[in-house]
């Protein structure tokens, strides 16, 4: 034990602890708890039954009250640890409750009914996962539909983003033509046009194109990302022009050069843009909220918000679906976080 502690608390250079070291570790451990804690708490809660969710104080882990099948009763009955009037305790199954008096039977000898005040009852609980929170929304609500819509929007938008932006980046990095700097300037300017400023007229354009209540109305306005053009252009500038000249000598067409020479060489930048695009489009909320008013077209984000905004919120389903919505992003975080952080640190993307 002492050796382990020595290893953990050993410092480089064998110097002693300085107050800044303590601040550092308090900050890091605190950060760990504050950054991950809320999501973990949500994930645990998503496995609780509605009864457990309504309890205060809440338990950290999901518990379920155990039930037992008793002869002579159709439904399984809930088990309680009851303190009987004579002071002894027994494990009994509840038949019904009238006011504060519960009627219980012994599961082994179900003939005799015992009446106990509910104050003297404690449910027999064990850790259990209410997996129906996850299956129910898919069966009884439209969540499978929402999931599919989100996947469709994310995939299509990302594919089109990659094609359209790489073509533009190719033109801006490998050709010299009049008006090139003007085009760059326009792209630079639009980099800073937020959706909030143009959403009212954009909505009228989407309507005029017949794309209201259409998933393409969500996809199309997002695909020409200035950030994407920038990222790809910067990367393509590093591809030597000699390669392209050599291909031209071999009578390759420009289109062939684009997709056989430049695209494969730009693969790392394309991968970064693809990761970003997937996260952006999966998380989009305001624009889908405006364009999609028919519930069969909702994306996961819009659907979640609608269910969470109802007067009688069914939290057990909302929590489970929030976890489902989080999964792709968590996968990206675990496996691809490195690419995103270097992308942001390098280009100030987001």
């Amino acid at each position, binding site marked *: 034990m002492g050796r382990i502690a020595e290893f953990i608390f050993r410092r480089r250079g064998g110097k002693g602890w300085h107050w*800044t070291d303590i601040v*550092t570790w308090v*900050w*890091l451990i605190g*950060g*760990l708890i504050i*950054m*991950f804690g*809320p*999501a973990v708490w*949500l994930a645990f*809660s998503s496995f609780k039954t509605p009864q457990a969710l309504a309890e*205060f*104080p*809440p338990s950290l882990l999901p518990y379920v009250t155990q039930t037992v099948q008793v002869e002579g009763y159709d439904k399984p009955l809930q088990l309680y640890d009851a303190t009987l009037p004579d002071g002894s305790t027994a494990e009994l199954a509840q038949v019904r409750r009238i006011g504060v008096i519960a009627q219980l039977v012994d599961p082994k000898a179900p003939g005799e009914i015992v009446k106990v005040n509910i104050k003297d009852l404690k449910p027999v609980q064990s850790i259990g996962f209410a997996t129906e929170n996850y299956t129910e929304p898919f069966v009884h609500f439209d969540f499978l539909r929402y999931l599919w819509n989100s996947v469709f929007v994310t995939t299509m938008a990302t594919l089109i983003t990659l094609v*359209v932006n790489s073509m*533009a980046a*190719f*033109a801006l990095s490998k*050709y010299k*033509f*009049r008006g090139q700097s003007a085009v760059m300037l*326009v792209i630079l300017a*639009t980099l*800073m046009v937020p959706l*909030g*400023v*143009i*959403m*009212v*007229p*954009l*909505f*009228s*354009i989407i309507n005029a194109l017949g794309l209201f209540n259409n998933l393409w109305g969500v996809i*199309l*306005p997002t695909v*020409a990302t200035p950030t994407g*053009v920038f990222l790809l252009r910067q990367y393509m500038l590093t591809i030597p022009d000699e390669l392209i000249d050599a291909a031209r000598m071999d009578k390759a*067409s420009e*289109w062939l050069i684009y997709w056989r020479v430049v695209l494969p060489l730009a693969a790392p930048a394309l991968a970064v843009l693809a990761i970003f695009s997937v996260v952006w489009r*999966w*998380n989009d*909320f*305001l624009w889908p*909220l405006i364009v999609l008013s028919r519930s069969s077209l909702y994306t996961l984000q819009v659907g*979640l*918000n609608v269910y969470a905004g109802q007067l009688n919120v069914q*939290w057990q389903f909302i929590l489970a679906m*929030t976890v489902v919505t*989080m999964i792709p*992003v968590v996968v990206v*975080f675990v496996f691809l*976080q490195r690419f*995103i*952080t270097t992308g*942001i*640190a390098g280009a*100030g993307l*987001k």
Partner: protein
Amino acid sequence: MLTPFKLVMGLIDAPLRALQKAAGLNGMAAFFLLPNMAIFGIFVLLPLVINFVYSLTGGTEIFLPQRQFVGMAQYQQIFSCTNYLDPNSCIEDTFWIAARNTALFVIIQVTLMIAVALITALVLNRDIRGRSFWRAVFFFPVLLSPVVTGLIWRWILQRQGLLNLILYDAFGASPATWLADRNWAFTATIGVSIWAHLGFYALILLAGLQAIPKDLYEAAEMDGTRPARVFWRITLPLLAPNLLVVVVLALIRAVQIFDEVFVLTAGGPGTSTLYLIQYIYEKGFASQLRNPGLAAAASILMGAVLVVLTLLQLWFSRSRDQKEAK
């Protein structure tokens, strides 16, 4: 799997070869730019232009030709106040409440955000074991969708939530409904938005810290300079350009706060967490008394603020680049 892709690309190649013969190399450049520019034009530039015309029209029609020209009436309605310091004296009082809330939110959120992000970056820049892990820890919420962020925190701040559990365990406090209180709800929107975006700014600042030459610190150490002095005389001045960019970026994005707050509090209770984008959204699309023209006018006013902030940012990053060039 790649064969059909190659086949399609090959099929496209033949007509494009003909196009290339007709248009020349520069013509091909135009061809490659066309899809992007078309989408840009239709979905970004055109709305930008239409927005100005839109703000001069009235009624609830969606299409511009059917809308009635009203001149500056929408702007007049926004600016008709008897006392500009009191939102309740304005005809369009919700706009001014939203504007005041947003201003207050921006000032407090950006100040706290920069402080927390700077401390985080300084901590991460120290000689710590597993730095990339810790960097990832702070970055995690940045990837979460705003809806998920909003729901996570709604779940924590509700009556049977984690916060009440902690307060109950620690102090025996009775559970409170935090989001039903005006001040707590406002505080919550600030805290949650910092939680969600902190990692992004910390990352940029960390990149700036790592770009500071190590020999400066070594020289300071040899001179026996106190750490506090090193921070004020070396770290902060050399980080200043990055810090300015981060401040402006944080300002621009704080002005546009919407998604998380909409899910967390929906602007309530009352109008205590109503911010500008939500005002525009509700005026333009959601409320009973829709008025897209007024929404457009409000969005232009907000856009003007953003343009000023953007120009500031461009100016800062240019002066930074020039410094680096020297």
